[in-house]
């Protein structure tokens, strides 16, 4: 469906011009990432040349081998994977449960409770950072991966997304299962969840990317315990390690590796990402 003024199929020079504009924007948007990958394949000498050389003379993976030694990359990757997978899994489950209740149940104070929860969506994390840090300290979670994960096992956006989608699941489907004596949890996971798989895919992408990339909270709660550092914090240490040597290739190799998991997940789940924003997005 084409609904905007530009979409009258243009012909001739107009089409050529627009195609050119699109290519130019795509190239400049991709440029930083392309530069990152190219730099990771250069030799240290090439990285330091003035003016910069664009293409590595003899592309090699030396920087990738070296970066693995410098920041115990394997360990950081596992830490990031644990953080991202544990939070994402929990967020999907807690959001499905609460989203189901908000979408299909009628109870006293429902809209009020929902509004309060949604309000937290607009709260920048820095506002709660200081007491939260003390709170996880009380719970004995500081300096540990659990401290990164536990405060992030549920979020308002997930609840909102699930409620929007679950509202569209026919009541008849749920009532039929209730008549058959199925428990509410069974109905949720056997009937409702399969019906909202696109929402689950979108939430998986959002939550995984957010927590894989998250920096402020892990940096704060881990208190310098480098064994527990996720990849993004290990990367930031790479810069200080490397400031004297100016070995850009090393930094770029590390950055390339850190970028891969969220971008790969995005490529697979891309269409759900767009659909979910349309579904939760503002109605005109």
């Amino acid at each position, binding site marked *: 469906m084409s609904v905007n*003024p530009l979409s009258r199929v243009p012909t001739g020079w107009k089409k050529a011009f627009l195609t050119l504009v699109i290519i130019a924007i*795509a190239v400049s948007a991709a440029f930083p990432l392309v530069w990152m990958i190219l730099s990771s394949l250069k030799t240290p000498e090439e990285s330091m040349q003035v003016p910069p050389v664009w293409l590595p003379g003899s592309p090699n993976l030396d920087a990738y081998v070296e970066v693995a030694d410098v920041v115990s990359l394997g360990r950081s990757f596992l830490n990031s994977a644990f953080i991202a997978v544990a939070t994402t899994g929990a967020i999907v489950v807690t959001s499905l449960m609460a989203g189901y209740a908000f979408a299909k149940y009628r109870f006293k104070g429902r809209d009020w409770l929902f509004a309060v929860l949604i309000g937290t969506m607009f709260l920048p994390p820095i506002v709660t950072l200081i007491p939260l840090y003390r709170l996880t300290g009380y719970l004995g979670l500081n300096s540990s991966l659990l401290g990164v994960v536990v405060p992030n096992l549920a979020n308002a956006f997930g609840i909102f997304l699930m409620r929007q989608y679950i509202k569209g699941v026919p009541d008849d489907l749920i009532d039929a299962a209730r008549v058959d004596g199925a428990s509410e949890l069974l109905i949720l996971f056997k009937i409702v969840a399969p019906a909202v798989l696109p929402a689950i895919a979108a939430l998986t992408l959002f939550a995984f990317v957010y927590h894989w990339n998250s920096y402020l909270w892990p940096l704060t709660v881990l208190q310098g315990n480098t064994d527990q550092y996720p990849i993004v914090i290990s990367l930031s240490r790479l810069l200080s390690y490397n400031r004297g040597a100016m070995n850009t290739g090393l930094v770029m190799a590390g*950055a390339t590796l850190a970028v891969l998991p969220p971008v790969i997940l995005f490529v697979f789940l891309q269409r759900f990402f767009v659909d979910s924003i349309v579904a939760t997005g*503002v109605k005109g």
Partner: protein
Amino acid sequence: MTARHTSSTIGLLAPATGLIAVFVLAPMLLTIGLSFTQWSTQTGFDTAEFVGLSNFTNLFGPTSIGRDFRAAFFNTALYTALSVALILPLSIVLGLLVHQTFAPGGIVLRTVLFSTYMVPMIAVALVWSKLYSPTEGPINQMLAWVGIPAQTWLSSPDSALISIVLLNVWQQVGYFTVLAVAGLTQIPVTLYEAARVDGASAWLQFWKITLPLLRNTLLFSAVIAVINAVQVFEPVALITQGGPVNSTNVMTYHIRRVGIERAQGGLGSAMAVTLMLSLIVVIVLLFMAFRERGERT
């Protein structure tokens, strides 16, 4: 409502609501409470000592505490205004380009734009710090090709903040483009058809149909862009550490430095409360501005 229903309602809501109450709502209330106290973040909440409004009078007073805070506040406001001013128009232009379906490039553009949003901010900051490098970076090199003199980017107090705005816009604009596309798909085709019958130019159609009907989308985008902008942290923590000459010291960085690193929990909380109140004011103003404009059209 049956008893069974009540218990399953509670059971379904308890995990998410409980977690959000403990880890978001309670800390938010604690921030407000602690803002009236003197308290070391390294000690228990019970050591907080009530000091009334003195943290706030410090923030707006003549001491270095106040000067640093107001500088961070001003930097954040400037950063936020610049980000929103760049992101919103760009997201509409890109949204229109992505939304049109005739060119195969549309899909490629969409994928590229959205994937930048997936890149960790730390990686963005690392890569851009190299792109911006005055001598070894490709940006100044390319500027030289078209005869523009080398820029100082992150290394000068005059250009450091806008340099961070630009890398932030690059990372975020894809998300706002999706929002714009979502808004565009909801504008009825018939409006454009009618306008075309009346002989309205594409330019006129954009100003009279597209833009007014994107009002809610733009309001939502503006609110999200503001909230995202005040969270800027990684490029500052990683590259500039607030410098040069405090020109990139922004609120999230400053509050964390005061409240966590210097353990001045009460003072940091007062800053966080000021930030929260300012955000509420800005969001209310945005709502009022967009509503007013809506009534005029």
